[in-house]
């Protein structure tokens, strides 16, 4: 059964980071409902919030594939109902 998930990702802010993330979604045929991006102050890190609708198995697979991206340093995926927008800042890096 499909649910909506929010994936929060912290990664190095490299030139190719968008593409590295997007190939994982496209190869799994996942449409992106929402996409937010913020770079840290000195542009070293990037923080993405990506909202997708899918089933749990595909969700788990996509997260594992995303974890293989070398530039990625943290990833959390939560059911949209459990996503608290106030938590957003917790993930943001301070550099």
């Amino acid at each position: 059964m499909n649910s909506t998930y929010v994936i929060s990702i912290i990664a190095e802010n490299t030139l190719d980071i968008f593409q590295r993330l997007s190939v994982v979604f496209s190869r799994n045929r996942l449409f992106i409902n929402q996409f937010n991006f913020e770079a840290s102050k000195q542009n070293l890190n990037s923080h993405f919030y990506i909202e997708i609708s899918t089933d749990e198995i595909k969700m788990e697979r996509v997260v594992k594939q995303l974890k293989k991206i070398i530039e990625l340093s943290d990833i959390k995926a939560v059911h949209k109902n459990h996503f608290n927008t106030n938590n957003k800042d917790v993930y943001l890096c301070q550099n």
Partner: protein
Amino acid sequence: MEKITGAAMLLKSLLCQKTELIFGYPGGAIMPIYDALFSYNKKIRHILTRHEQGAIHSAQGYSRVTGKTGVCFATSGPGATNLITGICDAMLDSTPVVCITGQVPSNLLGTDAFQEANIISMTTSITKWNYQITKANEIPFVIAKAFYIAMTGRPGPVLIDITKDAQFELTEYEEKLFSFENLIKINNSGYLNNISLAINLINKAKKPYLLVGHGVTIAKAEDEILKFTNKTRIPVASTLLGLSAFPCNHPLYVGMLGMHGNYGANILTNEADLIIAVGMRFDDRVTGNLKSYAKQAKIIHIDIDPSEINKNVICTVPLVGDAKEILQILINGVEKNNHDNWLKKFRECDDIEYQEVIKKDLEKSDEKEIKMAEVINLLSEKTNGKSILVTDVGQHQMIAARYYKFTNNNSHITSGGLGTMGFALPAAIGAKLGAEEREVIAIIGDGGFQMNIQELGVVMQENIPLKIIVLNNSFLGMVRQWQELFFENRISSTEMHNPNFIKIIEGYGIRANKAENHTELNDYLDELLASKESYFLEVKVIKNENVFPMIPAGAGVSDVRFS
């Protein structure tokens, strides 16, 4: 401090990684690197391939036999795009290679400059990592990182694209050691919590079944697999890429899994009460239809790559980590056991397979006509299963996998995941250069041979004592088989009118013979094996033979066809 060019810095960085051999092909955007190579030709051997696809497959073959990272060079644009098939092949078969491509000068990037291709974008989904260097001072760090990533955890390909201005740029160079700890997170203790669960399942199982994959060879865990099975007496099967990780003449070996695997090895998957899968990824060619795959069995899955766990088959106990380490712990924990009655079932299946398939494959029905199985069986006997076989893709690949009785570890090199025709000749060249003391024999179909036939130029120029056997059925045999079985025998564009191979080979100065009957086959195989130099043998085999057993695509592992 002395300043050197980015190109020289690249070679110094490669030397730091103990690179001895590079396969490559020059061109405009990589010329500064080739120029620097001129000064390093005593320390690094460069093999000029005849096509960039040849370069990457050779690097793969070299890597697979040595366990080291293969290295290849290509120029920008078409040079880089010619690497793509090999990169994808290396990704699917977990082969560590570092590809260095030249790129147009950085001020021309994005302008559709001559031979500009966005190779970083093109290879993002088929590399473990890729990176474009535009400043020479990045080179030492990035190259060290590339080798670390290619080798660490589950190995794979990395591509580094270097702009021409960075290759020319003069910068201070100092040899440094870089540390990349935690760049690739391997949860080394992650499996510890699950070990006792796994041991319990193994000790209690009545019909346990061990599946050996490529990961066993990569982790160099062959001895551990032997010790584990000798203690537990669990029957062992192998995937295509797992072949040679376990000796085929071992009493517990029950054969190969998969579409053309052994009968018992496949159907008894659906009788086992416990499957222990080591370094294999439950590929669809192995599992067939997942809906009817091993539903009765508990599954212990040992793999270094967490993304393989529960990807295709949901497992009972995941053990994520290095197969060698995990097996060492398991060996100590499991009880001595035996499963003779269970093993007997495999042997009963062997009898059925012998009657239905093997007997027919091996019998000489005709004075002259040669079957593929006869060639491989004879070769296996004459070499005692000790050679390295590098196979291409198609019927000959499956027959080689079925009939060569590997007795030495790390002796089977083939393109498993991508199934790349044209792989074998260049990969065998790389394998022979990596294992000069061993007999390396390439087994290729007439179709695949013509996909990278130009690499014979490398065999000639470098005087490589490689043995090549082409099984010529004048068809794209495997596709013809599918047309016969699943497309009402509509033989559409699979018949090949071949050139005179012997003349072509002789043009390359390689000794060549053609076997057209059983006696010639026997004699020429002896000649081939006795030869200290390269030797080419074309064997004219039956045109329309089919490979059985076969599990049709999409069917379950129990739906084995014998005809």
